């Protein structure tokens, strides 16, 4: 992977770049850290306050570090299907799908969102691996397919139960979108692309906007008293509560989609027909069953177990924590871990080792906090639980 990076990461870019909203974050009191090659705000007023605000109102997250790509040309969907296990040719205009880019061994190169934008396919990939993704796509897609990296676009996420009411006042019409659909809209003469999606477990939107208009849009959003800016810290605790894996932590090239419990990303008919990179390996895991599985853990007490903590059943190590922290919504620690399939059943008691101490935990269903997506006017929003 590092070889690809040196080949494709433009040499003239500084090691740590700044995002279009860099100055805006600093003005708003954002504490900046290096993340995915960018200076990004980890928090403004505090992680728990921002977390709770997102669950009850609406928060503005800058996710401009993510790669916004497009594929255009005759047969783009068919070509992309050779690299993903999802149904892309059947994706209707304005529809989005979560998918996984896999290597030859079925390992996860990245998780991403694919949208049928009409003229082309839109891809949103993780910031930390976007240069590798671009290299991989360029290497394996036919030359007739044009791959464009929209580095000139910023990406703002507005997340929370009041996101739709707020955004409708700024970009009329967005309220018509339902979860995992998208469309082009006009915002004061600027074309923006709005997706009803996100990574917090809440209803919300991601807005792709030209970088030179990002500050004006951010200001318009936080001018509404229901919106506050939120940083990477809250984004991480929110996605963990929502049971959503984070690439580079809960997913990497040593993990296959079956062990990651992301079967929904493998479109049923394509599981059998194959024709995508990694199919042979993944089909074998599907047939034999995975030896490990990504599971959720709920901990007793207040001490969090973080990434790297070992998981024990009695004296036997049966797994490792890949994400963990204190859940502000639940008031106790939660974690994601990979454990041996024999210890993956809901309710299984396990112990986590933190600084030589064993913490009691049990396998719990994810999401830890019910997801609250908007699926349309006739459905009841939120998890039926």
């Amino acid at each position, binding site marked *: 992977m590092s070889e690809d990076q040196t080949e494709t990461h433009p040499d003239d870019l500084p090691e740590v770049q700044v995002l279009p909203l860099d100055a805006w974050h600093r003005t708003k009191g954002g504490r900046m850290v290096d993340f995915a090659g960018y200076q990004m705000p980890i928090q403004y007023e505090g*992680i728990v306050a921002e977390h709770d605000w997102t669950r009850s109102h609406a928060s503005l997250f800058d996710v401009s570090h993510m790669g916004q790509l497009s594929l255009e040309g005759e047969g783009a969907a068919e070509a992309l299907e050779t690299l993903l296990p999802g149904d892309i040719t059947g994706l209707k205009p304005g529809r989005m799908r979560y998918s996984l880019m896999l290597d030859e061994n079925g390992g996860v190169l990245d998780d991403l969102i694919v949208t049928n934008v009409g003229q082309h396919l839109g891809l949103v990939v993780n910031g930390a691996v976007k240069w590798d993704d671009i290299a991989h796509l360029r290497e394996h897609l036919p030359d007739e397919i044009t791959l464009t990296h929209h580095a000139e676009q910023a990406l703002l996420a507005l997340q929370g139960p009041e996101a739709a009411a707020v955004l409708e006042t700024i970009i009329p019409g967005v309220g018509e979108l339902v979860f995992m659909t998208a469309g082009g809209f006009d915002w004061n003469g600027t074309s923006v692309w709005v997706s009803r999606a996100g990574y917090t477990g809440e209803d919300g939107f991601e807005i792709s906007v030209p970088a030179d208009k990002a500050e004006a849009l951010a200001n318009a959003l936080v001018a509404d008293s229901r919106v506050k800016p939120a940083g990477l810290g809250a984004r991480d605790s929110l996605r963990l509560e929502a049971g959503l894996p984070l690439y580079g932590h809960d997913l990497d090239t040593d993990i296959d989609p079956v062990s990651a419990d992301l079967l929904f990303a493998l479109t049923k008919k394509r599981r059998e027909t194959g024709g995508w990179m990694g199919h042979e390996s993944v089909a074998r895991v599907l047939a034999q069953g995975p030896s490990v599985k990504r599971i959720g853990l709920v901990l007793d007490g207040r*001490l969090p177990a973080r990434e790297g903590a070992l998981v024990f059943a009695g004296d036997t190590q049966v797994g490792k924590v890949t994400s963990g922290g204190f859940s*502000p919504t639940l008031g106790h620690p939660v974690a994601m871990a990979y454990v041996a399939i024999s210890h993956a059943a809901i309710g299984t008691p396990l112990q986590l080792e933190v600084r030589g101490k064993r913490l009691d935990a049990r396998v719990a269903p994810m999401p830890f906090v019910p997801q609250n997506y908007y699926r349309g006017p006739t459905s009841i929003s939120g998890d039926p639980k």
Partner: protein
Amino acid sequence: MSRYFTDEHEWIEVEGDTATIGITDYAQSQLGDIVFVEVPAAGTQVTKGADAAVVESVKAASDVYAPIAGTVLEGNPALEEDPALVNTAPETDGWFFKLKVADASELEGLMDEAAYKAFVEGL
């Protein structure tokens, strides 16, 4: 009774041969929301500069060092129930542990309040 400060953002208040140790307001503001504090048990021997306690914020775990050597008299029992005391009252009720001072000369070289204030302003 006098209060000293370290460049690791601990405070230490000495009364006779007993010292009370905590983290400064600046430290808690950097750590953010604190969810768990692990304090040393009574009887633990600590040496100057060694790990003595751990504070877990929503973000990460951080070590707290013993500013001087000594024998732990008690950890703050209130932090078990209410670790957020470290955020709300870091330099009073949110103390971490008390020590029986082994060697008072180790206090030499620590900062006083004015020096620490200048140190933080320079960060």
